[in-house]
């Protein structure tokens, strides 16, 4: 996958009246970019550093490095504050939901892209509606649909809702992808005696891999960061909250600060959630940027 973001340095050089002017403008550019980089990185670095401090140090010396790194903060965040448990919940929801989002979307997109049949355009347009309407409008009725089906506060319930809300954009994206694949491939396979299902699973699905990767990243980030849906549908009472996902857990911890102060534990909890996300981004930065901007560029 080629990098989308390396700029073409040769294409737009500065129109330079003089060498000195060019140097000055270069310095200004680096100053601007450097300042913004500091504004972005500093809050994160500061909070990770603070996660290693004692509560005393946090209150009285916000600038100083921790005298002794308090690894215990992380242990408390993981166990007492139950970040570990919330992480497991999140993964138990996201892994199946991501798998079925991609599988079901690929199946629907393949059919919508390759076959003429009655109702095709109605189905295609109906899926588009889900991309335009704001989530808030659905929230109240969705809550009662889930209540009727006894799916409130259950893992399968949230998984099904995640899949349903991820389908429209994923189908839209993959349908365009399937349209670019040549029809002849399927015809050749039919002559070799393959049935329709073989053609999809053996011939077309492997060819969609780049599209599936892009949509996989897009949906992973969307579902991993999702807060509104679990906040509405996973509403265990405060003492139980055994089904919380990470985003709910963090908010719950923060709200708890008002009557039960454990600042160092809270900072550690944020670091535990933040640092792995950033590391994953560093490794897959190109694919992640492509996945996340896919919506805007295609749309």
């Amino acid at each position, binding site marked *: 996958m080629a990098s989308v973001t390396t700029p073409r340095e040769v*294409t737009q050089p500065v129109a330079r009246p003089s060498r000195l002017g060019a140097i000055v403008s270069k310095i200004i550019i680096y100053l601007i970019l450097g300042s913004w980089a500091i504004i972005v990185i500093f809050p994160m670095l500061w909070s990770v550093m603070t996660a290693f401090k004692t509560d005393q140090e946090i209150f009285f010396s916000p600038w100083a490095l921790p005298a002794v790194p308090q690894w215990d903060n992380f242990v408390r965040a993981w166990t007492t504050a139950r970040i570990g448990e919330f992480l497991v919940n999140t993964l138990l929801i996201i892994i199946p939901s991501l798998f079925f989002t991609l599988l079901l979307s690929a199946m629907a997109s393949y059919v919508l892209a390759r076959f003429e049949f009655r109702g095709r355009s109605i189905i295609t347009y109906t899926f588009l509606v889900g991309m335009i309407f704001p989530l808030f409008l659905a929230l109240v009725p969705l809550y009662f649909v889930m209540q009727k089906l006894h799916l409130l506060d259950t893992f399968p319930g949230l998984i099904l809702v995640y899949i349903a809300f991820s389908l429209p954009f994923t189908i839209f994206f993959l349908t365009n992808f399937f349209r670019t694949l040549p029809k002849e491939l399927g015809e050749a396979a039919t002559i070799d005696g393959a049935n329709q299902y073989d053609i999809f699973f053996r011939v077309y699905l492997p060819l969609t891999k780049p599209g599936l990767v892009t949509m996989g990243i897009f949906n992973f980030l969307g579902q991993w960061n999702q807060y509104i849906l679990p906040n509405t549908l996973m509403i265990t009472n405060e003492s139980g909250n055994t089904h919380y996902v990470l985003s709910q857990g963090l908010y719950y911890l923060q709200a708890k600060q008002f009557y039960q102060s454990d600042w160092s534990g809270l900072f550690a909890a944020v670091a535990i959630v933040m640092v792995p996300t*950033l590391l994953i981004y560093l490794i897959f930065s190109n694919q992640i940027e492509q996945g996340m901007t896919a919506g805007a560029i295609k749309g």
Partner: protein
Amino acid sequence: MNRGKNGLIVSFLALPVALYTLFVLVPYGAAMVLGFTRWSGLSANIRFNGINNFIKLYNDDYFWNALSHNGIALVVLPPVVLGTALFFAFLFTQGIRFSRFFQITFFFPQVLSVVVVAVLWGFIYHPTVGVLNAVIDIFGIQQLTNFPWLGNPKTVFGSVLAVVIWQSIGFYMVLFIAGMQSIPSDYYEAARIDGATSWTLFWRVTVPLLWDTIRTALIFLAIAAMDLFAIVLVMTNGTGGPSRAADVVPTYLFSTAFSDGQFGYATAMGLVLLLLVLVLSVVSLRFTAREAIEY
């Protein structure tokens, strides 16, 4: 070649369509009806009341208060975020060393969840623990010692918007950089031979050729300005801020439904929000329509 075609179509579409209908279409459809009812959650008590919810909304000061904050976001976010992102993207075309380092850094906040970002900035704005006041102390501004950024009605919404800006600039910048790469270099060379400066190149070549991406970005930001649910909820601990000074329509909707149990009224709010988003999208598309430039 299409032997077994119908079986495949039905079996491949059945599950996605069923899930989508049950969890997306039914709720949206129900919302269209619920918005015109008075309903507290028990099915026995559902009662149609025509447009009364909307009349009540019109007279609801809390609703206008919340909507005004979305309005401020709508005025502030697009110019600030798009302007800065476009400017940064342009700087990267000026032959920068370490450009990949800067781009990755700028994109960082975008991969973090809104809740993480909100909790993180909750630390930074904190009156005693927060690093913002520690920075201000260095400059010796006495009036601002232990200033509660999120606890003061005058500063709370501005503080929240600053975080939204901090988080989104990198995303739009990457979007614009990707768009700029499809602009053929001949355009720049030709313009430079004609003696154009960087400034003219930016306004006369880059902006017009990026116009479609800019329009899309504008709609994204307009929709984001009408939302702001998670960031406001977490940064104000679900209160909408002191004197509701940072309340937005989605947070007000949520508390009207799930704290006050006025589900019909809350859904009416959702319908108004939908209408506003649709109108905004259409208006910004119309307003920014230009002859497409083929290249």
